[in-house]
């Protein structure tokens, strides 16, 4: 029987990502990884990571924080690497050399997912490898020192698009990778946040139970890059969800479902003001920029609800 996803049962399980890694104090990435591996606790898993904060800090020779088989190949190829591992698994299983039911999970930052690794990810999904790809999205290249990525939100201050007198942080919108992944027509795509851990773990569990390619995008605060208090990762991710900056939803076999609807949608300023990377937006005369962000969020949220509604009404009419 599957281990129930509650604290009492999960606390009895071994943590397969150990303490002693060298990620920053308060970094959300190890928390997210522990949640993923706990959700996968009933299976043996093989994990592939892309180059990035998580990778460089979790396996510094001659130590490793991974109690599961783990491979790091390069920055842009976690999905392709895991394609190889998973294919070898199928080959050896077919030959009767392996009989275990192993799950394959790629865990990579937003840079390695939205940008440089996008081709490799898209290819692996299209080839229908049986794997779960998780992006821990900290919204910038953190390992190289907070440079903008395709996931960096509009007007965030980063080292390559610094908020200056003329340009107020990143001028462009973030890439909506979750939607792009859903457009691949794969069986399961979701967005999750460590603040809503039962939702996150349920999504991981569900994904692992589905055969074929799956993608989960996890909001993962970085206190260094976002200039937040060290112990605020969960609080900030909760604000992201409650302001609908980071909606929690899933797209299962093409059907969109919002998995958390805030009773009262908070204004985005609450999310922005807690972070140093948006500090410049609170200077006098910049009110328009915050309003613009709010407008973008509202539009996306409404569109998402409509999308959900569209599928719901179809299902009813069947």
């Amino acid at each position, binding site marked *: 029987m599957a281990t129930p996803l509650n604290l009492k049962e999960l606390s009895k399980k071994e943590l397969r990502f150990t303490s002693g890694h060298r990620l920053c104090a308060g970094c959300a990435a190890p928390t997210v990884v522990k949640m993923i591996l706990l959700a996968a606790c009933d299976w043996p898993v093989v994990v592939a990571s892309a180059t990035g904060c998580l990778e460089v800090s979790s396996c510094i020779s001659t130590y490793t924080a991974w109690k599961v*088989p783990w*491979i790091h190949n*390069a920055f842009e190829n976690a999905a392709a690497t895991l*394609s*190889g591992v998973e294919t070898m698994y199928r080959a050896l299983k077919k030959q009767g050399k392996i009989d275990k039911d192993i799950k394959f999970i790629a865990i990579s930052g937003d840079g390695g997912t939205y940008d440089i690794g996008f*081709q490799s990810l898209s290819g692996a999904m299209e080839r229908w490898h049986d794997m779960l790809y998780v992006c821990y999205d900290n919204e910038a290249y953190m390992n190289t020192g907070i440079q903008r990525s395709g996931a960096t939100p509009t007007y965030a201050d980063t080292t390559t698009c610094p908020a200056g007198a003329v340009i107020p942080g990143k001028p462009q919108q973030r890439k909506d990778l979750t939607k792009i992944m859903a457009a691949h027509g794969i069986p399961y795509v979701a967005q999750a946040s460590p603040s809503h851990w039962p939702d996150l773990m349920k999504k991981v569990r569900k994904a692992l139970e589905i055969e074929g390619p799956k993608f989960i995008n996890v909001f993962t605060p970085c206190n260094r890059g976002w200039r937040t208090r060290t112990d605020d990762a969960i609080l900030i991710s909760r604000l992201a969800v409650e302001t609908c900056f980071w909606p929690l939803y899933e797209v299962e076999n093409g059907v969109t479902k919002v998995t958390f609807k805030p009773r009262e949608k908070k204004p985005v300023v609450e999310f922005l003001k807690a972070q140093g990377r948006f500090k410049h937006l609170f200077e006098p005369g910049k009110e328009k920029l915050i309003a613009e962000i709010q407008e973008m969020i509202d539009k996306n949220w409404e569109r998402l609800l409509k999308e959900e509604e569209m599928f719901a009404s179809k299902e009813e009419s069947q």
Partner: protein
Amino acid sequence: MTKVVAVTGNEAVANAFRQIEPDVCAAYPITPQTELMQRFAAFVSNGQVKTEMILVESEHSAMSACVGAAAAGGRVATATSSQGLALMWEILFIASGLRLPIVMPVVNRALSAPINIHCDHSDAMGARDSGWIQLWSENAQEAYDNTIQAFRIAEHMDIRLPVMVCYDGFIISHSIERIEYLDDEVVKKFVGEYKPLYPLLDVDNPKSYGPLILTDLYHEVRKAHSEVYKKVPKVVVDVAKEFKKISGRSYGLFESYRLDDAEIGIVILNSAAGTTKDVIDEYRERGIKVGLLKPRLFRPFPYEEVGNALKNLKAVCVLDRADAFGGSFGPLYLDIAASLCNFKEKPVLINRIYGLGGRDYMPEHAQGVIDELIEIAKTGKVKVLKEYIGVRE
């Protein structure tokens, strides 16, 4: 019983793959390699092999998937040419650094720009320092034989390194030649069962692949890695000896052709060696003591053996089918020069660049080089150290 057939180089190598039956093969098309993987994919489709194919979206992912598959714990192969090899470049170092015994035929082709699909060696030469073992092949038979031996060399427990098998695009890949195939069973027995080392799929004994190594250890790890390459020549020779038993064909670190008593010599890789040998025979008939050295194991370069084989000659021309732009000489020349530099008595060396982008290497080119070497041996005078030959005026 061996079977004699007339096939292209690509078909011969595809058949070697079929007989070896890797567990996983990644493939991405690029001329002139494409046909090799197409033929192999047909073997997979027809159920002649159990291999799982990964039909990736790029060569970068082909090599990345090979790294994952090899680390997972099985026999892995892919193949490429030119731009494909260039796109793999980053991961080539990772494959060798992680000691993964991947085998990859490289069907040699020129690099862009300008784009050109025909043969030269600039692709493999660009990857010569990536830590891959490189075996070079004069004809389809050698490409077939080298492919079979490559798996044994790569997977040898003293080695565990990836191997490239180089053969000339179109000249070998697409020309039909007489080939002696070994029996399927003989090849299977020769290559043997794959022995995984620290497989990722051994979930009860988890291993971490690809750690970060900082200044305190990186230097030491690299030194240890470099030591492995010293063991390669012996393994290559041992595997060749065993291969002779099943095939009757002899292979070494390099081929010496009429070199023992030679006074002048040519060093050349791959298919052009065949033409050169014919021309050498003509000159020998006229009493001119000319010989040839054709490197087979180009990486790691067996410089002691090569140096000893050439040191007594008076004049040697190294023919490069690739240039090293902005560098002094062609890549093969540099290794030959380095092999000879510590001998007191050594031949005068010249470097000629030939055959780029598929330009034909004709008997008269070999003749021109030999005539020049005769002159140098007589006078000790060199007109020009490095020069392109066969250039249209």
